[in-house]
């Protein structure tokens, strides 16, 4: 049976990758008039990377083949 932690890893990794890609896009092509506060911190860049790394760790650690 696939571990619940594997599903969580997939969720974090996919969401992290999507958020990171949005962050990279905004870094390359920043909006002229950002509509959020603290845009200069580029939170989606580092938060997305963090989620992606955490998700990949879970995916590898709880991969179905490894568990069985």
């Amino acid at each position, binding site marked *: *049976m696939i571990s619940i932690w594997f599903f*969580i890893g997939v969720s974090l990794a*996919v*969401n992290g990758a999507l958020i990171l890609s949005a*962050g990279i896009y905004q870094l390359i092509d920043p909006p002229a008039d950002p509509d*959020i506060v603290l845009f200069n911190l580029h*939170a*989606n860049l580092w938060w997305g990377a963090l989620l992606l790394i955490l998700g990949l760790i879970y995916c590898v650690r709880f991969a179905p083949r490894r568990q069985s």
Partner: protein
Amino acid sequence: MMLPLASYVATQLVHLSSIDIVIVIFYFALVLSIGWYLKGRANTGEGFFMAGREMTAWVAGLSFLSANLGALELMGWAGSAYQYGILATHWYWIGAIPAMLFLALVMMPFYYISKTHSVPGYLKLRFGEPSRALSAISFAFMTVLMSGVNMFAMAKVMQIVLGWDINFSIWVSSVTVAIYVTLGGLRSAIFNEVLQFFLIWAGALLIPILGLYEAGGWANLKLQIAARASAQYVHLWSGLGSFTANPMGIHWTGIVFGLGAIISMGYWTTDFLVVQRILAAKDIRSAEMAPIIGAGFKMMVPFIVILPGLLGLGVLPEKLVPESAAAVNGGHSFNDVLPLMMARYCGPGLLGLGVTALIAGFMSGMAGNVSAFTTVWTYDIYRPLINSKGSDHHYVNMGRWTTIIGVLVSVGTAYLVMQFASIMDYVQALFSFFIAPLFGTVVLGMLWKRASGPGGFWGLLSGTLCSIGMWAWVKVDPSALRYVALSPHAKGLAQDMYQALWSFLVCVILTVAVSLLTEPTPDEKLTGLVYGLTRVPSVGEVPVYQRPVFWAAVVTTVFLVLNIIFW
């Protein structure tokens, strides 16, 4: 008089980018996939209703917490923090931690040893059929109302944040929950709750981090709140010596005895919605550790719920108003503070994750209600009162149909809830009706072997009627609040605290009195159900750091330190 939500014209706060929409759609696809994957493991009664009783302590513990981390937690308490300040944290600390530890160390062994399917099921074993019927019917009633509250809150936030049609939100979320719970039963609900727990943290944690950065740290935030509201908004206990010295209009006795000793004990130890997750644990040590793990994380939840409310008070340029004022004059209400903070800090991608966190919170609460309702209906109402001769397969089918019907009833309830003035006060009133007396009955049943069947039934019934009676009295004559809550300055939440306290006392007094006047239950019938007649199995030969008592002591220490820091 509150206007119905339908007449509330909200201004859309944010627009989702395509990447945000992909994140939301991915979430729905994942939860449905989990339900589909688990459908083969829900073909027996134990598999469908109890998740096979094979959950680890971590899965059961996070699910236990996540089932409670629904709409009210995320949006309602952030709004309460804006309205009442840090006092709202009491509902997470003294209003949860002692009760969770009490459940783990004192009550869980009896639930677990009795192998009951539900809390009403325990009452059947301990007090007989009438107590079970009363408890099961009241629980089922409360559960569908709670589920409707969740849907209402979800649909409202989607309308405010995204401009989504309220009917669309209700139906999409409810159909999704119906599918994955119908397919995979409690196991599917638990798996998705653990997933939702992670998503909620991933989506909500950035708001307090960025908010504290913007405010210049906690010390600066306190100064801003003192300037814009009152210095009392950041003190947990120092303003509770008098009803008039704090924003909530409550006395410390209400918090300690009403909330800490009765309402929270009732909710966390006898509300089957949360207890069901622990009953699915694989062994006694996991069953005891699960609420302790839940308590550890519960202490941290104010960071993503209460702190955003306080940050809203400190940094938002506009002043939020009560819901009734927002409906009449426009502007945003207290309950909008979390989406407003999200819109303030979250760009593309993060916004999608934040919205997903909200949806996940709403759906986990709804799934928790539906799965608990299904079990209680099937095992505690349908089987004993309607059809006691069905096969295991028949009851599983009944569970699946009940899931669908429960969701439909909840949808109807969601539309009903729109007529009520305040989500929070409404739910608190419900807790007071049923939970406080139920706690009195269950705890006496577990700890006092002389409590008899008639004593349990009449105590539970009188406590519930007392609670409803006090609520109705104040509704008809608001000045009666001075008698119920001991002060003319008391407000809604304070009323609920004292109402719970009185109904608990009535329940206990009646239970004791009737028990002493009726025949005691023979000891042999109470083995495994009552303290003193039950041999509690050991958690096994494990090191100290793996023992539930050790971690309960750690959680207690952190709990005390936090209360002192924010005194």
